[in-house]
C-alpha cells in the first residue's frame, strides 16, 4: 500500500482544477481489473471519480505532457523516478515548463503484476493492498492469497534510484532521499558471461519480441516527430522480426537512440508483454558511460549536457574500448 492516500492526491487535483490554475490533470485510472491501471487525462472535477492511486500506478506520466501541454495547463502527479523523465524532456525542449504544475508524490515502490501472478496464480479478480501485504483473490481459489508486497515490487523499485524528486512545483510530503541501489548488478552478471553465453542470452530474450512497439511507445525518450521505424526513407523502417538479426537490430537501434538520454525509468521492461529485460541494454550503456565519462544521471537537472553531447579534454580516447582496458579503472 502506498502511504500517501488517494484522497490527498484527489484533494490537490480538485483544488487546482476548480481554481482554474490547471485545466487538466494527468493521473491514473482503473482498467478492467484492479491492477490494470492506465494513465489518464481528467479535465473536470467530476471526471476525477475514476482517478486511482495505489501499488499499480507504475506508469510514468511525463511523456504525456508533450501532447497535453499543447492543449492545457496540466497538473501532473510524478513519482520521484518520473521527475527525471520530465527534466530530460524539458532539456530537449519538448514542452513548456510553464504549462506544467508538477506535484511530487512520494512512492513506496510499485508492484509488478507479473511477479504477483507468479505467486498468486492466474485468474486474478481482485487485488487489495493493506500495509505491506497484498490480498489477491483469484478465480481458482476460495481463499484470498496473502503476499508480501516487498516480494512483488517492480525490478526498478527494488533497485530504486531515488526517493527524491528531481523537479516539482510542490510536494505532497517531505522531500525524500537518494537511495543507494545495486542497479548495475544484473549488468555485471551479463558482463561476466562469455560473448557466446551473452549472445545466447539475448538471442533467447529477443527472440520473443513480437514488435508490438510498446517499449517504444511508452519510452519517455522516444518522442521523435517521426520514428525512424515508421519513416520509409530512413532505411531502418520495417526492421521487423523477419529474421533473428533484424529483431535484435530494432532493440539495438533503440538503445543507441536513447543513449545518454535514458533516465533508466524502466518503463520499457515494465510494459513488455514478452517480459524481455530491455532495461538491461540501456543500463549497460549507462554503466559504460559512467565508467568512461564519470557518473551522469540523465534528467537529474534541466539543461545538463549528456557526456555523449559534450566534450572535455579529459574524455577517454575512443580507442579505450578496443584496447580492452578495464572500464571501471
Amino acid at each position, binding site marked *: 500500500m502506498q502511504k500517501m492516500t488517494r484522497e490527498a492526491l484527489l484533494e490537490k487535483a480538485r483544488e487546482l482544477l476548480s481554481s482554474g490554475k490547471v485545466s487538466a490533470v494527468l493521473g491514473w485510472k482503473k482498467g478492467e481489473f484492479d491492477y490494470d491501471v492506465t494513465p489518464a487525462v481528467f479535465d473536470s472535477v467530476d471526471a476525477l471519480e475514476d482517478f486511482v492511486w495505489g501499488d499499480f500506478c507504475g506508469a510514468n506520466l511525463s511523456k504525456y505532457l508533450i501532447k497535453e501541454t499543447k492543449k492545457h495547463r496540466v497538473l501532473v502527479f510524478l513519482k520521484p523516478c518520473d521527475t527525471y523523465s520530465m527534466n530530460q524532456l524539458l*532539456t*530537449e*525542449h*519538448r514542452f513548456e515548463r510553464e504549462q506544467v504544475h508538477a506535484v511530487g508524490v512520494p512512492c513506496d515502490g510499485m508492484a509488478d503484476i507479473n511477479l504477483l501472478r507468479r505467486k498468486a496464480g492466474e485468474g486474478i479478480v481482485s487485488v487489495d493492498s493493506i500495509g505491506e501485504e497484498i490480498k489477491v483473490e483469484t478465480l481458482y481459489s476460495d481463499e484470498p492469497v496473502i503476499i508480501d508486497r516487498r516480494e512483488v515490487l517492480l525490478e526498478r523499485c527494488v533497485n530504486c534510484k531515488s526517493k527524491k524528486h528531481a523537479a516539482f512545483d510542490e510536494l505532497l510530503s517531505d522531500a525524500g532521499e537518494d537511495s543507494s541501489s545495486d542497479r548495475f548488478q544484473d549488468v555485471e552478471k551479463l558482463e561476466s558471461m562469455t560473448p557466446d553465453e551473452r549472445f545466447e542470452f539475448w538471442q533467447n530474450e529477443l527472440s520473443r519480441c513480437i514488435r508490438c512497439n510498446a517499449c517504444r511507445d511508452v519510452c519517455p*525518450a522516444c*518522442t*521523435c*516527430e*517521426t520514428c*525512424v521505424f515508421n*519513416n520509409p*526513407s*530512413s*532505411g531502418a523502417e520495417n526492421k521487423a522480426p523477419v529474421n533473428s538479426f533484424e529483431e535484435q537490430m530494432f532493440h539495438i537501434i533503440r538503445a543507441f*537512440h*536513447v543513449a545518454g*538520454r535514458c533516465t533508466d525509468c524502466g518503463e520499457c521492461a515494465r510494459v513488455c508483454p514478452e517480459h524481455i529485460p530491455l532495461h538491461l541494454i540501456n543500463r549497460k550503456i549507462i554503466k559504460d558511460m559512467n565508467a568512461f565519462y564519470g557518473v551522469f544521471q540523465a534528467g537529474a537537472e534541466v539543461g545538463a*549536457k549528456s557526456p*555523449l*553531447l*559534450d*566534450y572535455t*579534454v579529459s574524455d577517454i580516447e575512443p580507442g579505450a574500448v578496443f584496447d580492452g582496458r578495464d572500464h571501471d579503472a
Partner: protein
Amino acid sequence: MQRIGVFVCWCGSNIAGTVDVQAVSDALKNEPGVVFSTDYQYMCSKTGQDLIQDAIKAHDLTGVVICSCSPRMHEATFRKTVAAAGLNPYMLEVANIREQCSWVHKDIKTGTQKAIVLARAAIAKVHLNAPLTPGETPVTKRALVIGGGIAGIQAALDIAEAGFPVDIVEKKPTIGGKMAQLDKTFPTLDCAACILTPKMVDAAQNENIRIFSYSEIAGISGFVGNFSVQIKRKARFVNEDLCTGCGACVEKCPMKKVPNEFNLGMDNRSAVYIPFAQAVPKVAVIDPDACNMLKNGKCGLCAKVCTAGAIDYKQRDEYIDEKYGAVVVATGFEPISLQKFDEYAYNSSKDVITSLEFERLTNAAGPTAGKLLRPSDGKHPEKIVFVQCVGSRCDGCSEKGKPYCSKICCMYTAKHAMLTRDKYPDTEVYVFYIDVRTPGKNFDEFYRRAVEEYGVHYIKGAVGKVTPENGKLLVQASDLIDNKQLLIDADLVVLAAAIEPDKSARPLATQLTASMDTNDFFTEAHPKLRPVESPTAGVFLAGACKGPKDIPETVSEASAAAAKVIGLLVKNKLTGNPCVASVDALLCSGCSACQNVCPYGAITYEEKEFRMPDGVKMRRAASVNPAVCQGCGCCTVACPSGAADLLGFTNRQIMAEVDAICR
C-alpha cells in the same frame, strides 16, 4: 538513372602490381548505371585527365568514379578535371584502391576483389550524389604562432614582414625557447645568443608582432580563416607595461633559493626573477610558489624598491579572446626524463648530466660563467664520457625510451667533444655511439674534425653501467670494434637524452583537431609534398613539434610555414566546403542535441510553421547556417531523430555504400 564512367588508375605499379586493373575495369562495366569503364597508367597525368574529360563528353556522363589513390591525395585534382568537362565537381567519387587496397594486400586475387568491392560502393554512392555549390567565407587577416622558440620567432617575423599582424603565445616568461639555452651552434659554431637574441629583439620591436609571454592557449574553436582563440595570460604579478627590467627587485628579493629553470636547476634564482639577461620581454616575474608575500603576505620588498611601481601582488590571470585566420604550431621539444635510466646514475650522481645541462655549464651566462666545472665539487673534469642515444632508438624497451632517432645528438655531442678539447686540451674525451649519423651540409666534415683534429675517442659500443665511486664515475662499456670491455674512471658523464614533443602538444592537438603520431609529434598533411601543413586546414607546423630537428631545418620550416600562412592571409575569401549539414525540419523534434555538439555555432533554433493534416502547427526546429558549417558531421550523429544529414555524405549515401559492400 545516372550515366556513370569508371576510371581505374594503375598508379604505375603501385596499384597495378597488386590489383588486376583490367579485371576491375571489366567487372565494373556490368554495374548498374555504368556506361563506360576503362583503366590507365597514370590517371592524374595530363593524358589521364584528358581521357576522363573526353569520356564525359563522348558518353554524356553524369557521374564519375575514379579508382585510384586516397581522395586526400587527388580528389581535388579530379574534381577540377570533371568540372572542366562541364560536370558538377561533386558528381565525382574516388574509390581508394591504393592505400586501402593494393598497399595493404599482397595477393593479386584478394586485391582485385577488394578493389571491385570498393568501386561498387563508390558507384552506389554516385547514384545518390547531387550537384553541390560551395559558398565563400571571409578570412581574418591575423596569424597566431604557438610557441616562441626559434621556429615561432622566425615564422612570426616572416609573416609580419609580409604585412600581417601576428601574435606569439609563449608559455615561458620569455621567448627564445631551447635555443636561448644553447652555447654554440653546429656546424659553424656561432654562439646561439649572438644569432638568436637579435631576432628576439626584432620580434619585440616589429609593430605587426604582439608577444604574449607567460601565456597559454585556453581554447580554440573555428576553422581555416576564422579561428577563435582564447589566450590565458598567467599572472606574473608585475605590470608588463611599467616594468623597465632594471632588476632592482631581483637583487633585493630575500628568497634566493629557488632552483633556476633556465640553468636546469644547476644554480638558484630569486622568487622574483628575469629568466636571463637578454629575455624578451625583459620584464620580471614573481614565482607564486616561492614568493613570501604571495604565500603569506609577509615581505613586499620588491614593491618597495620598484621605482616604476610595476609590482602588483593582486594581479590575476587574464583571458584575451582574439580571431585568427591561420595558426602556426611551433611547440618544440623537451629532453626526456631520465628517471628510468638508473644504469647511468643520473639520479644518484651530480656529475652525470644531460647534454642540455652541459650546454649551460659551458655557456658564459651559465651557472659556472662558462668554466667547465664538475657540479659536485667545482673541480675541472679531466676525463669526460659522452653517451649517445640515451632513450633514443630504443628497441623493445619503449617503456623506457623512444623508438626514433633524436637526430640532433650526434652533432651536438661532436660539438661538445670538440669544444672541450679545444678549450681544455688536457681533458680526455670519449664518445660512445651506436652509429654516428651526420648527414647535412658540412656536418660530416664537422664530426671528422672532432675525431681527426681534436683527438676525441669515438668508440662504437654501449655504456652498460655508471657507478659513482670515490669521487669518480666508473664507466663500464663495451668496444664493439675491438671486441673488448672497457672500464673508464671518468670525472663527468654526459648523457645525450632523447628528445620528445613538449607536453603541451597533445592537448593542443586535440583542441586544434590536428592529428599526431604515436609519439605525439604532429603529422604533416603529406610528409613530402605538404611538410609544413597539418591535415587540418589553416593549421601549419614548424620545427621540432613534428619530429626531431636541428636549427637550420627548424628555421627553414618556420619560413616555409610562414609562406603558407601568407598565401592564406592574402586571400579575401575562401571557397567553402559545400558538404555541409542540413536539417529536415519535418523530422526535427527541437531537442537541441545538434546545437550542443556543433563546434562552429552553425545551428540555430526557431519556431517554424508546419502544415500538417490536422492544421498549421508551430514547432521549434533547427536550421544550419551553411556559411558557418564546416561539414564535420557531429550533428548528424547526435541527432536522435535522424533529421540532420550531411550533404555529399548523406545517411542514404553511406548506407548505399555499405549495402554495396555487403552485397
